[in-house]
């Protein structure tokens, strides 16, 4: 049965039972509604800014001047990293027709795996590639020493490990959804639950406690000269490498989705898989790739959360990921599946958090914590189903009519 049909029917039936104002809202096209939502947001932000500029002493003024402070912007960017990267990955999967609600699980598993890999390889050290190999043959030892070795810091190998773990779990998810035609939502929840159990379990086995000790963390990258530019310099060129990666990933992801063949295939696979199939592109292969991409980006996001920030994995309670995977879903929905939009939404959410840390007197913490979720609900109401790809959530089998 077709969920979309229900929605279509509801949309048609709605005016009859709704008060006029809502009926008018409903009669707007989706694009109009989205525009309205965007402008509302921008408008509110602009109003606060304007008021803040005019009355610097007011609460709005305090909020505004804090929000554009260098420290707040740096902070917001750092906090946005896991959300924005995961959102970018998630939107690829969903665009291809696979709703990946297990992003939270991918974040957890990668955050943990990154720390473990870095720890096993030895914290702050480096590993050389190619490695020196020794053989014991009949009492004598032969050693193959490549001579020249590329030294890779273990922290980066840890991040690679985190990405790999996330992609493996994403692959499992893809197999269930695509190969075994499992329900995407249920499988996604399962991925989350498994990761939520597995990471603290493994941590307790390995370290005797749900959280790992601090292993090693990424230092900041400073680009000479550029970092001396006032204001922008320190924000962009004297920052955590993960911030660079995020800032590079956003345009790259956009380009990939909107300017490459693969991006077109991803979109077609989510909107009308049959159209793709009939021109000879393997829909399921595209979907596997898209889900793996979501695993890849969530993997970087998760590693950034652990190794990129505290240098450890915290597995207590909801783990250190603590809902960021779900905020990421909110971010790409709010950002209308556009990597730039998803980044902007992530920045909005993380900016709220950064502000909250700085301006706790203005409103209780929970108000700030709630805001992203409330915003998403409002956006969903305004924009209806935010133009979910037509075929999202459905598995596709070639040749069925």
């Amino acid at each position: 049965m077709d969920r979309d049909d229900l929605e279509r029917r509801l949309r048609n039936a709605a005016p009859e039972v709704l008060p006029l104002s809502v009926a008018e809202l409903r009669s707007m096209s989706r694009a109009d509604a989205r525009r309205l939502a965007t402008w509302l947001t921008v408008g509110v932000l602009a109003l606060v800014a304007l008021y803040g500029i005019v009355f610097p002493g007011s609460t709005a003024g305090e909020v505004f001047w804090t929000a554009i402070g260098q420290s707040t912007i740096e902070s917001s960017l750092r906090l946005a990293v896991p959300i924005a990267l995961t959102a970018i990955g998630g939107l690829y999967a969903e665009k291809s027709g696979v709703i990946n609600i297990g992003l939270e699980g991918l974040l957890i598993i990668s955050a943990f795996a990154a720390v473990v890999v870095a720890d096993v390889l030895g914290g702050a050290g480096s590993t050389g590639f190619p490695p020196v190999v020794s053989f014991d043959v009949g009492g004598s030892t032969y050693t193959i020493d490549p001579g020249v070795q590329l030294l890779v810091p273990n922290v980066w190998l840890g991040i690679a490990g985190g990405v790999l773990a996330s992609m493996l779990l994403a692959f499992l998810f893809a197999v269930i959804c695509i190969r075994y035609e499992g329900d995407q939502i249920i499988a996604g929840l399962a991925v989350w639950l498994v990761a939520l159990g597995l990471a603290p379990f493994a941590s307790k086995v390995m370290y005797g406690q749900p959280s790992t000790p601090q292993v090693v963390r990424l230092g900041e990258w400073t680009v000479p000269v550029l970092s001396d530019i006032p204001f922008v310099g320190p924000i962009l060129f004297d920052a955590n490498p993960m911030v660079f990666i995020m800032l590079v990933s956003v345009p790259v992801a956009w380009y990939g989705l909107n300017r490459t063949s693969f991006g077109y295939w991803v979109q077609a696979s989510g909107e009308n898989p049959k159209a793709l199939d009939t021109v000879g592109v393997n829909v399921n292969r595209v979907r596997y790739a898209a889900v793996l991409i979501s695993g890849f980006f969530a993997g970087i996001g998760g590693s950034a959360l652990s190794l990129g920030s505290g240098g450890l994995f915290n597995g207590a309670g909801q783990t250190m990921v603590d809902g960021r995977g779900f905020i990421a879903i909110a971010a790409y929905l709010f950002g209308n599946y556009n990597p730039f939009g998803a980044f902007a939404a992530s920045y909005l959410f993380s900016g709220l958090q950064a502000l909250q840390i700085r301006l706790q007197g203005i409103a209780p913490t929970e108000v700030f914590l709630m805001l992203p979720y409330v915003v998403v609900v409002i956006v969903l109401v305004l924009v209806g189903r935010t133009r979910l790809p037509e075929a999202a959530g459905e598995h596709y089998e070639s040749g069925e009519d």
Partner: protein
Amino acid sequence: MSRARDVLERLVGASGVERAVISMAALALSIVVGGLIVFVSGLGAACEAGANYHIAIPLPGSVEILLFDGRLSMLGFQSCYDPINVYEKLFIGAIGGLPWESGWQPTNFAMEVFLQRATLLLFTGLSVAVAFRAGLFNIGTQGQMIWGALVSAVTVLFVADFAPAGLAGTAILLPLALVSGAVAGGIWGAIPGALKAYADANEVITTIMLNFVATFGTTLLVSEFFQDPQSAGGTQTRMVPGNSLVPSIPFGFQGTRFSILALVLALVLAFVVYFVLWGTSFGFDVRTSGLQPEAATYAGVNAERTIVRSMTISGALGGIAGALWVLLANGRFLTGTEVPSLGFDGITVSVLAGNNPLGVIFGSILFGVLKSGGNALNFQTDVPPELVSILSGLIILFVAMPEFFRLIGRSMGIGDEQATVATDGGEDDG
């Protein structure tokens, strides 16, 4: 008479059987995979000597049939954990030991934990199942439960001042608490329902978001308005009066943490939900909408109203779970984050049960066992109790892929009836 026949038919109907077989297979596979995880992680854990594998069938008395005794190793490593022992602890520990062991009492502590958890899960499982049957994926049972818990606690605290003492007070406070919890949960469930019906907002996303809003919103309300002035440390409401708690009748477990009364209420509700879904016109509307919304409209079902109503009922069931969590388990509301994730476990329970209210009974018993067994694991073995979370994740993972089991089944030459667990209606025997 006819209904009894109907029940029977449904439980043994072809696709119903397949549904049950898949659930059992998923459970078995999860246990196998979980055992592997235990074994492999035992290789990495440190211990003086590998675990002694002792596989035997225990019999009454101290007799047992010995199957295997010794150590296992893989690639030269010995595992510190013995999966068989782990499962033994998990499932037997869940009920506090073997019933024929001396000193075993049916009201022992493990039983209490197990039954309390099963009772609460029965409500959240039913909550998810009802929404599923209406074609709605209510991931928001957690949030509905949180609101139910807060509102019932606050209502009781407010009314307690005017209520009579003793059992007379219980007669007023307890129903009031349950009703206020149901109302609060129902309203919180109706919101995504209405958003779905009238504004097209995808309920999977809205319910997830509203869970967070509930978590932070209730915490905010407690710290701003209902904070216990006596609290030394945390954000929490005052303790509800003792006579508002679910009394231990007809016979007592040792404390207030479990009451047969609550379990009976839950079981009755399971049958009520079953009857409503399969025995009433409204239930027919709900199931038709869940399976084929087009056909439901054709049959004169008001789609919007059915969506909102189903979500309200679903939310109310979640709200009762929250109220009972306060009245049975906790005695007060702390913060949104401190409410255990029964709402999410409810999804697992319902999915495992094929969204059948009667199946939910079995599902909640299983997960009650896992919870209580997790405690036993924690205290009797070195294996971290998080194993239980992994197991429930695996169960839902495998249940999500019926096609996998069907392929296996087909390769073994048995049935190929269609049955899928899906977020768009939840089929099975309908």
